[in-house]
């Protein structure tokens, strides 16, 4: 699964630590999602979409369909 978390974060000029604070997770989690090592569960994925005010599929894309 691909994601645009790093792009969305960069658009707001946020650090990983700042995004981690906003999502109430560790900075390690943000880094692991951005590097594709970890795929978040649905509640966190929805939280990300809500935070950036976008659809969940605007953040996370299934590589099979892309």
């Amino acid at each position: 699964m691909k994601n645009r978390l790093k792009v969305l974060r960069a658009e707001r000029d946020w650090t990983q630590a700042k995004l981690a604070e906003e999502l109430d997770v560790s900075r390690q989690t943000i880094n692991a999602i951005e590097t594709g090592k970890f795929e978040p569960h649905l509640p966190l994925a929805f939280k990300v979409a809500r935070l950036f005010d976008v659809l969940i599929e605007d953040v996370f894309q299934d590589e099979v369909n892309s």
Partner: protein
Amino acid sequence: MKKTNTETKTNKAYSKGRVSEAKVVYWGLAWVLATAGAAFGPELLWGYGTLMTSVAVATQLALGFGMIWAFKGVLLAMDDLQRLIQLEAISLALGVGIVVGISYELLEDVKLITFEPEISHLIILIGLTYLFGLFLGNRHYR
């Protein structure tokens, strides 16, 4: 200096995790003390009285379950990735513990070792494997 909303939120999450961890430490210390009481009390304190020994063992068991319950609180306070790292480390420790534990026990049965296998050796192995698993997980997901 006035705290921002973000700082307050982070401190709340941080505090929640710290409180859960502190609970495990307190339950763990109580369990260690109760284990020492159940192990040495019968000989040193109450001369193998059945009632006192039963109470000591029951207390030790109850505190042990309390410690497990407190650890569950720590897991629930973690985020998804931290919980995954814990799951992988605990799975590794359990697997190694079972496989090596059975082989270790077998060694005495087939006369490859002359001493009786100790449960404490197994607990040390499980503990070290768990720590190694945490190290591997944190390194992989850093």
